[in-house]
């Protein structure tokens, strides 16, 4: 029996959310300030936060060692207060490719990266990634070369994961900001390589201080 994605009930659940919002405020369970604070809190973490950890690790071997040993502490060093119990950082190499999935629900390092990508929380991904990671990666536009080992991580309990993708070629002279631009959310779960971003290259071309 095939897993069905199911996308029904948007308007209905939008209305349910509105009803709950009003009832919770009327009952005094929450104040408007509580809700505002949480909306702000949930919308702050984003791709760039995780990308900064990756870029710093590419530039600084000692930081990279600390990041691989304890992702949460390494994030705190850069000022990120990670709420999850631990972040395990997985280094991708030419010989080993790491891929992260939560088969049971949608576990993801939200306090660092924000909400997970839609496709990551799709039932299709949750069902197939553990069993046929190479096919899934190919369908996501990232076919792996021959000879690479694949290690899939099911994020099913208290740990959360961050993939450290390989640094793109030709970026040796780049600063941290430009390096961070190469790191997508998809790359940080192992679903895409870190990529040189064309706009970044164009900026460099017009900036005589960057080789």
């Amino acid at each position, binding site marked *: 029996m095939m897993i069905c994605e199911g996308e029904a*009930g948007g308007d209905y659940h939008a209305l349910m959310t509105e009803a*709950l919002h009003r009832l*919770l405020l009327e009952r005094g*369970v*929450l104040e408007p300030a509580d809700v505002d604070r*949480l909306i702000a809190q949930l919308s702050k973490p984003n791709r760039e936060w995780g990308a900064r950890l990756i870029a710093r690790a590419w530039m600084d071997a000692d930081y990279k060692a600390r990041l691989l040993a304890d992702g949460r502490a390494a994030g705190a060093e850069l000022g990120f207060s990670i709420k999850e119990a631990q972040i395990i950082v997985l280094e991708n190499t030419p010989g080993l490719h790491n891929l992260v999935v939560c088969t*049971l629900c949608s576990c993801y390092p939200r306090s660092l990266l924000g909400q997970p990508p*839609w496709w990551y929380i799709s039932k*299709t991904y949750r069902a197939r990634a553990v069993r046929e990671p190479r096919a899934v990666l190919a369908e996501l536009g990232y076919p792996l070369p021959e000879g690479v080992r694949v290690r899939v991580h*099911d994020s099913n309990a208290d740990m959360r994961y961050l993939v450290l993708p390989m640094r793109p070629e030709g970026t040796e002279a780049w600063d941290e900001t430009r390096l961070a631009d190469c790191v997508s959310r998809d790359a940080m779960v192992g679903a895409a390589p870190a990529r040189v971003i064309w706009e970044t290259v164009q900026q460099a071309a017009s900036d005589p201080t960057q080789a």
Partner: protein
Amino acid sequence: MTGYHDIGGKAAGPMIKLDPQPAEWAMLSEALRNAIQQKHRNISLDELRRTFETMGEELYNSLGFYERRVAAFARLLDEKGIVGLDETLARMDAIAAARGQRVNHAAMNVEPA
């Protein structure tokens, strides 16, 4: 047997690499739940998961991700005596009526009145 949500290794269709932003209401529902967790410490993510794992396979299969989360949230609030599910449904009816709409709870639709 862990449950109908335990789908690791099952057959499924092709990967569709879309990444739409969550709707505003989806972020609001996450904010409401997190706000209660932080302020009152009387609901937890584990309880939320247990709720959507037991609210029925039909619902689990037909609803999208954030839809499932808020459906479970409403049920958990009812279980805890914080907001009754019947009150939530009645409020939905009232809000809809004021907009010239009608709620079909069985079909989980909002229709013109």
